[in-house]
């Protein structure tokens, strides 16, 4: 009988990755010279398990590498060696290497051998052995430092499909390159499909760029800093391609083999980069792909499910018995049984949904390392505080919110927090604080990213908005309205908020990703006191609590979280403006009235306002009254994508199937408010014409 080692291998890799997470977390807390015995024990144990497991599964490279780490840790544990900042950094780099090697073993691709060799050489040096013997000659001779200020560079750049979605733009990157010297770009159209087959937001092109001039390698690295982990990148001195072609075949990754023409040497050169942030990006990419495959569920949740299924089976057998010799005198028992069945089903649904819920710490965990690395790079002092890490969120939402969060935290560190000198000059402590907080509010999860930095520059944002024609100089705009301009496409945060130029992150993409999840983002900022970005997200994308409403013969669903109140229309409170839009006076506010039958082109019960009901909803930062014919039941509905099954329809976010088998459309509140505004403008302009 043969044993399927694959299943154990997957478990080993998963456990090893968790061990590495522990190692990383402890290392980030560790202070030079102050190593706590327990801390070192924790790291040692994780390294020891990885070494043992990898040897068992035949991953000799991981085992050999981890052995050196383990030996060093053992010396520290025995008090023979002191903990230095250099050692901590080296261990962190080792964590990255082991993680890459594990990911390579899991996904079956070749890893960055030079990067591993480089770190191993550092470990060997520390151990007192001769590092040169362990490092391939190429790695020693081709470090970035030794390649600075060449007469020109050949850059092979292949964005990963998702790169553009994360707000990065090749035009901007190449513009920066063009500013350095003579740039000759050559686009490779091989990956470009026909327009009809094209996923327009995905990157399909790749480039080979010759950059002539006396340019430091570091300058080019800086340009590509924000796309680290989002692309294949090769940077070689011009005329050095021959050397790369001579590299051993095993150094070339699988990805390069798929696209042999332009990027044959890409991964080799990419390995030369020793920048921590790049590794962070690479790791994030690899982790996110592996995270999709499985989910770890607490035993208590599984036990609760088993209990519920047990109860369901009992109810079902009770109903079965009842059905065998049913008579009318048993109708009460039948009703009780059905009520029980309903309760069981609802609880089962809630519990199954809770399996998909994961603490947001899964998304937060990457930030200590990221902030640590960015601090080193930007020469800033920042304390990262995190609270509410146990707040639970749907796994899908969590995976999709990761990148926007990275952008916001990066922005807070890069643009928000000032340098220690500026902070001291402003009378603040030299260490800035970035605070990540998560909590539940109603049916939503709120994530706050706040910093105590310089705050947003209201005047410069407004000036930029006026310059871009987004606002008029005589507009009396609130802070919130002005800060909202940051989310406009092409509104460069770098220009406006900080002096760090050229790498402004696309806040419009951040907002778009959040909106696509059914969420919203707000900004608050006070000059000198910092900014707070608040992300509001639904807890799950699969189910929503909905209010069923009727318009004519159609049933629609309005998300319950969007509804503020529902009321009978009093005609005296309705005002028509310029013969187009209608406003309803509700207490001290005026709400625009949206006649849903008009928006969706339906025949209503009555055209008179007073015959219908007004459902007051809030979306897109404003309130509106939706005119409906009738309010029906409230119920949880399972959301089906309209886009996947049909096509995107304005004002509709999805569909569901009701108990009677009919399809009901779910109203997109933000969309409907926007649609109605555009419609009103049109009506107004028609009237004017």
């Amino acid at each position: 009988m043969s044993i399927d080692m694959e299943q154990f291998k997957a478990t080993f890799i998963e456990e090893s990755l968790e061990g590495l997470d522990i190692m990383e977390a402890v290392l980030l807390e560790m202070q030079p010279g102050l190593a706590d015995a327990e801390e070192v024990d924790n790291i040692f144990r994780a390294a020891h398990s990885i070494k043992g497991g990898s040897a068992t599964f035949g991953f000799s490279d991981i085992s050999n590498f981890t052995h050196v780490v383990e030996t060093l840790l053992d010396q520290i544990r025995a008090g023979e060696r002191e903990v230095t900042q250099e050692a901590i950094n080296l261990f962190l780099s080792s964590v990255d290497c082991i993680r890459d090697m594990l990911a390579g073993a899991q996904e079956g691709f070749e890893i960055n051998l030079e990067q591993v060799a480089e770190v191993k050489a550092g470990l060997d040096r520390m151990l007192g052995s001769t590092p040169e013997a362990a490092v391939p000659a190429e790695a020693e001779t081709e470090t970035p430092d030794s390649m600075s200020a060449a007469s020109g560079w050949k850059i092979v750049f292949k964005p990963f499909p998702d790169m553009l979605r994360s707000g990065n733009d090749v035009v901007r990157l190449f513009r920066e390159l063009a500013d350095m010297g003579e740039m000759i770009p050559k686009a490779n159209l091989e990956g470009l499909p026909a327009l009809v087959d094209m996923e327009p937001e995905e990157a399909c092109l790749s480039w080979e760029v010759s950059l002539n001039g006396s340019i430091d390698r570091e300058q080019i690295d800086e340009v590509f800093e924000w796309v680290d982990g989002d692309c294949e990148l090769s940077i070689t001195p011009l005329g050095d391609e021959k050397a790369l072609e001579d590299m051993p075949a095993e150094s070339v990754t699988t990805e390069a083999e798929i696209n042999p023409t332009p990027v044959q040497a890409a991964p080799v050169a990419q390995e030369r980069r020793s920048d921590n942030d790049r590794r962070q990006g690479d790791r994030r990419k690899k982790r996110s792909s592996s995270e999709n495959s499985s989910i770890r569920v607490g035993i208590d949740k599984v036990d609760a499910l088993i209990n519920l299924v047990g109860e369901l089976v009992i109810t079902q057998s009770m109903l079965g018995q009842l059905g065998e010799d049913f008579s009318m005198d048993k109708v009460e028992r039948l009703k009780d049984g059905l009520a029980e069945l309903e309760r069981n089903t609802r609880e089962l649904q809630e519990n199954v949904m809770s399996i998909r819920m994961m603490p947001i710490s899964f998304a937060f965990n990457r930030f200590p390392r990221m902030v640590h690395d960015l601090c080193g790079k930007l020469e800033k002092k920042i304390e990262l505080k995190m609270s509410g890490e146990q707040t639970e969120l749907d796994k899908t939402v969590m995976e999709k919110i990761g990148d926007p969060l990275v952008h916001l935290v990066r922005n807070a560190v890069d643009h928000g927090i000032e340098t220690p000198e500026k902070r001291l000059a402003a009378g603040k402590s030299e260490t800035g604080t970035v605070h990540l907080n998560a909590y539940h509010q109603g049916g939503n999860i709120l994530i706050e990213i706040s910093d105590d930095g310089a705050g947003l520059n209201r005047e410069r944002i407004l000036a930029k908005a006026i310059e871009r024609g987004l606002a008029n100089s005589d507009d009396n705009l609130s802070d919130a309205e002005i800060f909202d301009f940051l989310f406009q496409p092409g509104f460069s945060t770098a220009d406006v908020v900080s002096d760090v130029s050229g790498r402004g992150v696309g806040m419009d993409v951040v907002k778009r990703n959040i909106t696509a999840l059914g969420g919203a983002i707000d900004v608050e900022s006070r000059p000198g006191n910092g900014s707070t970005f608040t992300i509001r997200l639904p807890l799950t994308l699969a189910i929503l609590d909905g209010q069923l409403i009727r318009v004519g013969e159609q049933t629609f669903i309005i998300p319950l979280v969007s509804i503020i109140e529902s009321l009978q229309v009093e005609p005296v409170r309705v005002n028509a403006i310029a013969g187009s839009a209608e406003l309803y006076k509700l207490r001290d506010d005026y709400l625009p009235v949206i006649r849903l039958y008009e928006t969706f082109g339906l025949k209503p019960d009555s055209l008179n306002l007073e015959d219908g009901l007004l459902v007051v909803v809030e979306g897109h930062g404003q309130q509106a009254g939706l005119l409906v014919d009738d309010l029906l039941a409230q119920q949880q509905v399972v959301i089906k994508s309209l886009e996947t099954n049909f096509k995107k329809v304005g004002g509709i976010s999805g569909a569901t199937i009701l108990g009677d088998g009919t399809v009901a459309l779910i109203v997109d509140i933000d969309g409907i408010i926007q649609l109605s505004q555009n419609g009103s403008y049109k009506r107004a302009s028609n009237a004017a014409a």
Partner: protein
Amino acid sequence: MIHDGDKWVSDKASNSEAETVSSIICDEMLDISVVTELRAHLLEALAAKYPVRLDGSAVERADTAVLQVLTAFFQDARSQDISVQWTSASDTLIRSAELLGIADILVLKAKAA
């Protein structure tokens, strides 16, 4: 996300010239937020089989996603023998295409000269 407010591109057949053409007027912001909509307009233009006139005079920003879609459009049009011409193109549009090395494919380089 649905693009809000002003309509950034219009697509219509015109009889003012000797032959029927599809005209597409690009608005100032040509970026990833509007690329899906732009692609739909370009596909319609390809399906119509008429010569296409693009007006890029107002373009203040053209990003990679949009330029990529335009490249695919020009290639498809070429393979289907559909003539595509720019009636006008802004410097920004031309410069962005040059930066990506696709100005020749988009027939934008000659305009810059």
